[in-house]
């Protein structure tokens, strides 16, 4: 079975400042890792995902996350945030084999609030 821990429930930052949202996971099998974003009054959207290959993955709006197998982490970073990045961010893990153990497990979320 897999589990996900998002250590920070809320992260306030100033506009144009860098941000890191932390995510740690545990699993006994190989995993796929995801970051989803939920903007106010909207549904969940995939931000980026790691399936295999390069451990650094990027989104179209400037976020990036690095898969660190030794530290079992998948932290999300952005060098300079904008007001429009205000949202709740969910880290998720899924076993990479097609079985009943491969359901996606979400963390409890981190609310990112941007101050002007």
């Amino acid at each position, binding site marked *: 079975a897999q589990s*996900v821990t998002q250590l920070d*429930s809320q992260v306030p930052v100033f506009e144009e400042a860098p941000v890191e949202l932390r995510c740690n996971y545990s699993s006994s099998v190989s995993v*796929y890792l995801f970051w*989803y974003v939920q903007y106010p009054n*909207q*549904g*969940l*959207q*995939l931000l980026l*995902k790691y*399936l295999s290959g390069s451990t650094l993955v990027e989104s179209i709006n400037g976020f990036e996350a690095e898969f660190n197998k030794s530290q079992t982490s998948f932290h999300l970073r952005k060098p300079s945030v904008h007001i429009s990045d205000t949202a709740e961010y*969910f880290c*998720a893990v*899924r*076993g*990479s*084999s*097609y079985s*009943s153990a*491969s*359901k*996606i*497990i*979400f*963390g*409890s*979320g981190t609310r990112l609030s941007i101050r002007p």
Partner: protein
Amino acid sequence: EAGVAQSPRYKIIEKRQSVAFWCNPISGHATLYWYQQILGQGPKLLIQFQNNGVVDDSQLPKDRFSAERLKGVDSTLKIQPAKLEDSAVYLCASSRGRVQETQYFGPGTRLLVL
């Protein structure tokens, strides 16, 4: 391409009443998921369908929750009878079917049980 549709968007009921939610996935998506998202928590998978068969319902409270996906397209999730702790957002998602495929989420149904 139309997204995942859900209805109703909001529902208020009293405990012990019944309620049903409807989901229409993205056309061609074989896999459909129902999640429960309680305030302050991440979504929790209730049930996963592959076409019209159940793949995983291990976290579905089967004494009160039921779900079906007739003809492998639309799906309904029912709660009967509802309890106060069922107050949550119920999310439907769909994907093409392979494990690495992206799940696309609907806007959710916000349920309040009084």
